[in-house]
């Protein structure tokens, strides 16, 4: 981070406005705007195509792997694949379970993760290096190495089998989110904190009033990241819950895909329909959140 410059200009602003004004002022830029738009469109199509294909496939009555299968064919369209899912798993119940599991993890990560990230980036205390090292180390350890000992501990030592707490616990504070918080708090101009301290603000207040509003894009990134983990997590909740009334959507759908879809009239369509059902809520949440990524109100956050 180019810290020297940041310190000279404590007001952090989106580069977007600056670019917008210069974009409109000169005409050569307009041409490059089109190039940019073209590239972005091509890329977006490449990114979206598999999903489009997934949606089309999930609506097919008979699977069609040829080129024409990439286009919806009215004579081959059906909602049967979705009805098959709806009749074999309790969608509402699974959604609620997913919501509780994901919500618990989000809450833990936002409350304790922000505190930890702030402590790691801004505050001074002995052992900081060790905790940061542990934070990085934790990312590196493959989950498969810990899974069975972790299961034994959660289930036997803590007695949390078949409970939401048992599901949430190993994910309660997302370490990548802590790492992101730390990284972005580090990038904020130090003088802001010093000034607030001189004014007598407590650290908690500085975190709440200055650090968090400034790091809002980073926090939203971390929220999405934290959301994805438990939402899509299959193995752990599957191990911990034998009670089907507690199983989140990912587990129900994975069970459906691996055990029941093969018997459906169009197994491939049934699998794709399952994939769509799992993806839809995550996409919806992202759509609801994404407008907060535009950071035009960032400047006011600093001044206020």
């Amino acid at each position, binding site marked *: 981070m180019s810290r020297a410059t940041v310190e000279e200009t404590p007001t952090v602003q989106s580069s977007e406005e600056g670019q917008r004004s210069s974009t409109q002022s000169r005409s050569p830029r307009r041409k490059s705007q089109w190039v940019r738009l073209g590239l972005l469109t091509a890329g977006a199509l490449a990114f979206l195509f598999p999903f489009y294909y997934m949606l089309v496939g999930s609506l097919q009555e008979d*699977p069609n792997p040829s080129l024409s299968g990439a286009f919806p064919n009215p004579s081959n369209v059906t909602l049967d694949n979705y009805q098959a899912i709806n009749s074999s798993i309790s969608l509402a119940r699974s959604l609620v379970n997913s919501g509780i599991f994901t919500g618990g993890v989000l809450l833990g990560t936002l409350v304790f993760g922000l505190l930890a990230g702030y402590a790691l980036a801004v505050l001074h205390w*002995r*052992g900081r290096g*060790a905790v940061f090292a542990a934070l990085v180390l934790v990312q590196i350890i493959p989950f498969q190495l810990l*899974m*069975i*000992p972790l*299961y*034994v*501990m959660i*289930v*036997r*030592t803590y007695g949390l*089998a078949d409970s939401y707490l048992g599901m949430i616990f190993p994910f309660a504070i997302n370490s990548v989110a802590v790492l992101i918080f730390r990284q972005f708090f580090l990038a904020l101009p130090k003088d802001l904190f010093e000034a607030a301290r001189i004014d007598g603000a407590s650290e908690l207040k500085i975190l709440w009033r200055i650090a968090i509003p400034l790091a809002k894009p980073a926090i939203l990134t971390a929220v999405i990241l934290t959301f994805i983990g438990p939402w899509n997590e299959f*193995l752990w909740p*599957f*191990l911990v819950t*034998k*009670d*089907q009334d507690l199983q989140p959507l990912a587990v129900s759908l994975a*069970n459906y895909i*691996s*055990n*029941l879809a*093969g*018997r459906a009239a169009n*197994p*491939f369509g049934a699998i794709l329909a399952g994939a769509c059902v799992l993806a839809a809520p995550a996409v919806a949440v992202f759509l609801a959140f994404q407008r907060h990524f535009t950071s035009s109100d960032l400047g006011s956050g600093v001044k206020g």
Partner: protein
Amino acid sequence: MKRKALTTLAIISLGASLSGCGGDSGPSAEEAATANGPIDIWYSNNAEEVAWGEAMVDAWNAEHPDEQVTGQEIPAGTSSEEVITAAITAGNAPCLIYNTAPAAVPLFNKQGGLVSLSEFDDGASYIETRTGDRSAQYLSTDGEYYQMPWKTNPSMIFYNKDIFSAAGLDAENPPLSTYDEFLATSQTLVDSGEVQAAIWPAASSEFFQSWFDFYPLFIAGSGGQQLVENGTSQFNNPAGIDAAMFWAQMYERGLTPKENYTGDSFADGVAAMSIVGPWAIAVYDDAVNWGVVPVPTPDGVSPDEVSSFSDEKSIGMFSACDNRGTAWEFLKFTTSEDADGQLLELTGQMPMRTELPTTYPDYFAANPDYEVFADQASRTVEVPIVPNSIDIWQTFRDAYSEAVIFGEGDLQATFDEAAQRINDLAGEE
């Protein structure tokens, strides 16, 4: 401060590990063996077996108010190893798991997870009376039964009559009994352009995939040998090499593709044949006009002499079970003649019981399609119940994948080398 933190960390983890390893181990084995009371069981989660399991549990619970059974579904998919291993280690495995794979029994046993059924007074005799001569294949190396052979899906060849006719083949008596006939027929099928593949077993490397391509043919070709017998690999003998050469030809000529098919190649009409068990009848009945023949052998033998792979599933009793008296009684209840009859009725899978056609004449009269599978079920061969069995199958699959599917290196040399490693694995205790 840092050192202090580390010490605290070490102490907490030590505490956790002590409480993790210690703990009460429940009543002693002798007490548990006769104890009665409520038990948990897991059964697999396909609709037919769930229906059967629920019916069994309800029937039992109505008669035994003090020994209630709670049934739960366990996915039989790729994650069942984690689930069962984790449950054994944590001591919360259920009393009985229906659908325990015989290949996994040595591992669960090594983990101290299984109860020897031979310890029940009538344990061995019950299994041997019900299953007959085939029961010997389910003894562990210490001469005890750690599993109750339950049901089998003997492997046979399903073929699509419509595709055979379209390719100009005799759909009623297809030439499929020798390797040469099978290869020629496959060539005709693919050349006709009716199908992309003659037969399409999964080409991937999971340890169990050989059960559905090489192993049935090896069993048939060798007159009923197991992969490993008396601690010595058998698959590198002439019968094994012949079976491997047969598949190598299928792959080399493009009659069997080297990648997995997403979906069901047989149902989709992409492949003309498939290696299946009796479960297939219900699955394909409406979709495909099918016929069934035994797996091919090098020179062709009479169909009533062909042995095949059992694809059997057992019932395991797990050591976390406190009320083993009830568990054993429930196990016998669910493998009685009546219960087996219901299993047959509901799932079409063959109970591991002698004389199926004469025991259930009404069923086979009403469902003649199943008779050929019932006959095949009397001549099945199991995976060897030896230490490191999953390790052994993975070692074999890796060698097979290299030498047969991808046709690299010398087949005999690759198999000999794998045989050596497998002998070492089978000899370990």
